[in-house]
């Protein structure tokens, strides 16, 4: 399964971002192979409509699930339409690696 984590940086060591639409990066993690890469969130600097555009980006990347702090209404609708599961509740003092562990151990 491919997970996207909203992040303030490019690595597993970066702190997570609580925002979905305007986070700076997405860290992408494949649970089976443990492969990881990260992408810049091109929607971050958009004047309006960052949420849905970020969702479009995630869906284009074939992500199955998003881990983040909170998701706004329009973004939520877009992700659901694209078949992406949403798990919220990340806090800004967590690192990406911790967030992944917490999720995999069903702690979110």
């Amino acid at each position, binding site marked *: 399964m491919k997970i996207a984590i909203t992040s303030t940086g490019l690595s597993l060591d970066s702190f997570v971002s609580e925002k979905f639409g305007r986070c700076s990066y997405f860290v992408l993690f494949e649970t089976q192979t443990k492969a990881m890469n990260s992408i810049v969130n091109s929607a971050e600097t958009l004047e309006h409509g960052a949420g849905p555009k970020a969702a479009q980006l995630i869906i284009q990347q074939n992500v199955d699930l998003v881990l983040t702090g909170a998701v706004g209404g329009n973004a939520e609708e877009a992700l659901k339409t694209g078949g992406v599961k949403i798990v919220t509740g990340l806090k*800004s003092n967590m690192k990406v690696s911790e967030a992944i562990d917490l999720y995999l151990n069903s702690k979110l």
Partner: protein
Amino acid sequence: MENERTKRQLVILSGKGGTGKTTLAAAFSRLAENGVITDCDVDAADLFILLKPETKEEIPFFGGKKASINKVACTRCGLCMQICRFDAIKDYLVDDILCEGCGFCFRVCPDEAIEFNKVISGNYYDCRIANDAEFLYAKLLPGEGNSGKLVAELKKKASGYFERNKRDWFIVDGPPGIGCPVNASLSGADVVVLITEPTLSGLHDLKRIIKLIQSFKIQVAVVINKFDLNEEITESIETFLGIEGIPVKGKIPFDERVLFALQQGKDIMDVPESNAAKEIRTIWNSL
């Protein structure tokens, strides 16, 4: 081991203007011992008047795009004027104010005579106030659109300070109304304090903003300012809020001393013996 420190983002909104939102925000800024503050009312930023900041950096903000016609390349075919839905082009000249930045004219022009670029729509200011607390505010240029993006940028920069400098409070003086900038000011909020006044208009607008906030699922509390101007309506407000399950955190009495303080450029907490100041302190402690 997780940090035990309570970290809170507090957003102050009002729906209707003039209810005392900025005055309350200034008071909370004084009471918060370790805080970062943003004035997200970018249309009419007033908080700086009371906080008297020292500006560290002024940063231009690029908002939406605007079209402009290159008169030399233009062959006056008139297609742009036919196509524009906002009446923004008259006599082959684009009205900056009416132009909504859709790019239609730019894309249809057969002579490629139209430029379509981002323009500076305002500036934001990175400042310091008492106790070296960070304070950010912005000013839109006259006639520019309410900008959710500008609010988001202000909050992002402020969040950075909140994290790096380990602040306990992130206080946001929010915009009035119920539009897109209000949404932007709410992202990441832990609690919203709505300040209202006991007038029929105030109650009307309070209902509208509560409807908007309920879709966000954030903890909400209400403060009724100048409640003694009309105790009957104050009661109506309390009844309405009771039904909605929203707590009334405080009722601030009308106090002329507050007005005098404001006129002298001071904030309420400079008059600590006033009833208003006492009530605000109680409200702050309850948060």
